[in-house]
């Protein structure tokens, strides 16, 4: 039984998927609470604290509330597409986690388990591919709601996403050139041998972080779904479970972007002094410590997302597009050229 679940067959893969999904959805649910709490502290007030001690049962309360709300479908909406859009958005957001490695190696119950669901050779390209399919969820949601605000919000959101997808992919090319592999585990492992990529590729990190904020439709780039601007953008007409799916898709995207920033730029599961200490312990223990370090770093970036949201003002839509095409894209291209030059001269 244990062999089936932890071995190499399809059942083991499904089990891994179930575990990763479970952990992800838990984190997504708790991020709702963390966001509100941190927002409260930044605004000099206490966040939600009624549901359970320190508001810890708030996600549960929110979930129950969402389940009991009435399911509304606008009358003139295209019903099939209207229902399919949030499903597509969440599916795309969650499928990207198939190639994210959580540690360098895991030893569970004496068996070596790969800490990644699918170790594809094309690694990071899978994430870009599936994330670009997530745009459809948004544009279809906006269109099928048959409402002006939703349509405008959907079009703006999707135009923003495809614009920043370009800069995001290009900013990673510099790292790929230095590492020579598309697999995220290789990129994270490479940083353990040399410096972290945040030091080696600062422009790349800047562009990637900006593009990640724009891709996930988070402040300062959330014009398309901000309340004072467009009611709620593409999810104006959505209520209860369908809205919850969009909400969860957004947080799953945020977790993905944070994981990518950690793996690509901040050394993944590597901390300089810790690795020396772990050289003498068993590989299973080292793997678990690495997993913990990874989770800590991702948590820091999640906090960064929330911090930026409640600190910075919002970009206007034309400023946003101008930034994406006239600043981020040239910067990313320059970064590629500069990295290529450095490699040619034998420095990097």
């Amino acid at each position: 039984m244990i062999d089936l679940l932890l071995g190499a067959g399809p059942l083991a893969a499904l089990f891994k998927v179930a575990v990763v999904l479970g952990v992800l959805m838990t984190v997504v649910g708790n991020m709702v609470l963390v966001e509100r709490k941190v927002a409260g502290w930044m605004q000099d007030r206490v966040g939600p604290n009624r549901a359970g001690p320190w508001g810890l049962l708030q996600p549960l309360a929110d979930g129950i509330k969402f389940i009991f709300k009435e399911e509304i479908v606008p009358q003139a909406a295209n019903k099939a597409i209207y229902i399919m859009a949030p499903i597509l958005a969440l599916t795309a957001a969650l499928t990207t986690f198939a190639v994210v490695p959580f540690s360098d190696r895991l030893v569970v119950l004496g068996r070596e388990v790969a800490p990644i669901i699918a170790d594809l050779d094309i690694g990071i390209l899978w994430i870009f591919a599936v994330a670009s399919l997530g745009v459809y969820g948004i544009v279809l949601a906006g269109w099928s709601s048959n409402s002006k605000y939703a349509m405008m919000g959907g079009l703006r959101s999707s135009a923003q996403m495809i614009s920043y997808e370009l800069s995001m992919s290009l900013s990673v090319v510099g790292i790929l050139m230095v590492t020579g592999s598309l697999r995220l585990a290789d990129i994270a492992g490479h940083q353990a041998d040399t410096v972290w990529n945040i030091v080696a590729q600062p422009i790349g990190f800047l562009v990637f972080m900006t593009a990640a904020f724009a891709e996930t439709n988070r402040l300062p780039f959330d014009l398309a779904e901000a309340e004072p601007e467009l009611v709620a953008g593409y999810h104006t007409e959505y209520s209860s479970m369908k809205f919850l799916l969009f909400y969860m898709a957004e947080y799953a995207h945020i977790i993905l972007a944070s994981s990518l920033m950690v793996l690509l730029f901040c050394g993944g599961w590597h901390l300089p002094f810790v690795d020396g200490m772990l050289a003498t312990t068993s590989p299973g223990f080292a793997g678990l410590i690495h997993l913990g370090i990874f989770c800590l770093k991702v948590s820091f970036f999640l906090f960064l997302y929330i911090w930026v949201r409640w600190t910075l003002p919002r970009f206007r839509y034309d400023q946003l597009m101008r930034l994406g095409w006239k600043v981020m894209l040239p910067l990313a291209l320059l970064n590629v050229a500069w990295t290529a030059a450095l490699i040619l001269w034998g420095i990097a």
Partner: protein
Amino acid sequence: MSARELVFWADAIVAVMSAGVVVLHRNAVVCALALVMNLCSIAVFFLLLDAAFLFAVQVILYAGAIMVLFLFVVMLLDPEGQGLAGRVGRIQLTLTVAGASLLLVGMARALPSAVADTGILPEGFGGVAGVGRLLFTDYLFPFELASILLLVAMIGAIHMGKKEVER
């Protein structure tokens, strides 16, 4: 039948059915979405044929960018679609299906002389390194031409998309 062939034929059914929706459905938005599904199933074909890089490029580029463009234009111009052309269309449809079937039969007769499979593949087949190496050595000229083509297309599309200036 191996697992790979099973997935291949299942994917073939998805591809053919979504192609049917593209060709026959009335609503142009549904056609566009069916084409996205078709492109994704072709991407899966690429994956089954050991072309992993092409799988990624097909989804990122074709299904994720070109079709989004299509969808924008369809939503703005032609949300309802017009379906097949009227009564004359029925004759058109029958004749076309007959012609396409003839084409299929002709292709089927060419099958026995089709290329035989070699079976063994070199290391790293279908990966980025192989594509990149070929792209910058044997196929450098088409590569540069393609970039000029894209530039020309960009200029043309921007020029034609601009609003006409009122005299």
